[in-house]
């Protein structure tokens, strides 16, 4: 039997088992639910920028018009309802139909103190009242217009060259979480899968037909592809979620992000998955697995925190340095692309280092796996596994 055939057959079983496993399905279902429910909740609860204002008594039309203009300028809408009596207006306020009522051009009636609404509404009336007041002093229209010309609103000049910076950092943080979760779940699966074969002793039968190396490669590929499916589902859910929230920040770099995310997932999976597979080969019982995995768990948590730090403070020198460490690269790199401050040489160093590290770890894992997977009688130390014969 050729190596490639053995790998293919193991791969097929692995991916079929993974996709059919309830843990995988439930995991995906929960992820989808959380993302979609979260997005829906954001849409429902986020204050929509609609100001609902009631009018009672005598209000200058110019004030309403000016308020509408200023609200629309900041991207909101204004809805006006006129009331005939104070009782009607109060009832509407209490029912939550409107945010406030302007009474006779001088009073803002609200249910609870709302400085935001006051500062939003007040200038329009002040201006309208000012115009009226100027007219009563005997100035003609031209003079009033001239005087008001000096009261032009401030123009805004942005220092931040990238208006999407916050959104980009948010996407960076989300990409870290998605990659971390996917790599961890897939790593945990390969660990369980190795352990299952070892604790049930079926590995003895497997290795009477094929080599340990082929078995390991087939298993890594199968679990890896299943993890890719999982990540694609999560990313798809996130994109749908963004649509639900109605954000217009599906960024123009999302294509690149996707390629980087797939590449980084594979790197991360090879780095962490191969250690976890080797670690699982050291133990024979479920109970021992946790202890054998402790070094990997610590390593991955450190990489996770470093990546989150880099996503929230992307311009710090420390961020730039830690995101070049091989174990951090897989989680942090797409985020740095999202933020947009990754230089090409940083990318080359980071990815190159991670590829070299993944290659080394993979051959290390293959050695530990082949030497320890048949020792089903006890737990083996990492160092002992290196020099073990069979």
């Amino acid at each position, binding site marked *: 039997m050729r190596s490639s055939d053995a790998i293919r057959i*193991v791969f097929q079983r692995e991916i079929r088992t993974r996709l059919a496993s309830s843990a995988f399905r439930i995991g995906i279902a929960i992820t989808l639910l959380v993302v979609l429910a979260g997005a829906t909740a954001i849409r429902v609860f986020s204050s929509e920028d609609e100001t609902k204002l009631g009018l009672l008594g005598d209000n200058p039309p110019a004030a309403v018009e000016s308020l509408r203009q200023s609200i629309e300028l900041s991207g909101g809408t204004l809805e006006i309802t006129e009331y005939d009596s104070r009782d009607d207006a109060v009832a509407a306020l209490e029912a939550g139909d409107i945010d406030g009522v302007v009474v006779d051009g001088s009073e803002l009636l609200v249910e609870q103190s709302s400085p935001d609404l006051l500062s939003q509404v007040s200038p329009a009336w002040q201006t309208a009242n000012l115009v009226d007041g100027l007219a009563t002093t005997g100035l003609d229209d031209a003079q009033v217009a001239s005087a008001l010309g000096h009261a032009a609103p401030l123009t805004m000049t942005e220092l931040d060259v990238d208006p999407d910076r916050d959104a980009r950092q948010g996407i960076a943080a989300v990409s870290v979480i998605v990659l971390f979760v996917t790599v961890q779940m897939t790593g945990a699966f390969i660990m369980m899968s190795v352990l299952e074969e070892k604790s*049930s*002793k*079926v590995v*003895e*039968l497997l*290795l*009477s037909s094929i080599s340990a190396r082929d078995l390991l490669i087939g298993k890594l590929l199968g679990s890896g592809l299943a993890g890719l499916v999982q990540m694609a589902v999560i990313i798809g859910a996130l994109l749908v979620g963004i649509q639900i929230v109605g954000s217009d920040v599906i960024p123009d770099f999302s294509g690149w992000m996707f390629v980087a995310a797939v590449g980084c997932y594979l790197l991360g999976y090879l780095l962490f998955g191969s250690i976890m597979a080797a670690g699982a080969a050291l133990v024979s019982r479920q109970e021992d697995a946790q202890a054998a995995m402790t070094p990997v768990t610590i390593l991955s948590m450190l990489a996770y925190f470093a990546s989150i730090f880099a996503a929230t403070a992307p311009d710090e020198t420390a961020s730039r340095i830690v995101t070049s460490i091989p174990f951090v690269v897989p989680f942090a790199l797409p985020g740095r692309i999202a933020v947009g401050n990754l230089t090409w040489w940083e990318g080359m160093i980071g990815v190159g280092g991670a590829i070299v590290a993944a290659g080394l770890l993979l051959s290390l894992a293959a050695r530990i796996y082949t030497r320890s997977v*048949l020792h089903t009688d006890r737990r083996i130390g990492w160092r002992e596994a290196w020099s073990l014969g069979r």
Partner: protein
Amino acid sequence: MLQITDLTKRFGEVQAADGVTLSVPKGRIVGFVGPNGAGKSTTMRSIFGLVDPDGGTITWDGRPLGPDDRSRFGYMPEQRGLYAKMGIVEQTAYFARLKGRSASDATARATELLTELGLGDRLDDPLEKLSHGNQQRVQLAVSLVHEPELAVLDEPFNGLDPLAVARLEEFLATLAANGTAVLFSSHQLDLVEKICQDVVIIAAGRVRAAGSLDELRSSSGRRHVTIRVERPLEPLSDLFAGQRLSSASTREVVVDIDDESELDALLATARSAGQVSVFSYEPPSLGDIFEEVAR
């Protein structure tokens, strides 16, 4: 033919195999017997590369073993183990595929063999739903599904009920009749004696005796003579007190002799005590030979 020559393997302080030499011709059933820890499993695992021997050679039809040969061999490990949650046909077919069978061929063979073993109505059940005895049958199916030229079965009779033992005996006989070389280990000597043409006796990593059962019997000097006299004038236990006795009572003794020439003298002595009702001369049992060589 499988030929193992001078196989050695040491695990730390333990010399598990110390120059093991044995052969398994096609169409023969070879019984591999010895006490626990004698080196049976180490030898069998070496055939599949599960143990890297320190020395010695293993050949198949005169050529050193390569990975391709292993796909012609079937193996039933001493420590049983399969996928608990996998359907039994799917599982059996999976192992056939790992031995190089095509997907459709593997499924067809798996279905056929499991049905032959009486599991025809359980084909899609996961292994864990089956009784212990039925799981053993699946284990056997998995090792033989690809129609191997050599079947290596480590303690295949362990944990089987008498009915299952009888069925397995029959199965192995058919296998050998179809030209398969069968090597199986057991510590149930009566079974080995019944099934095998050839026996290899191993103890402490060394082969103590090997050959066909007949050869071993005739090469062993030990013989039993059972003598019975219904109404002896003198208790037989007293009459034969000078002989080596395996058992002795008033009316019956079992005498161990080294040479057939002693038979006439024994019969004469027995006649002096009265009418002889039983005088039987038996070749040694495998148990006797085992006791003799494995000491």
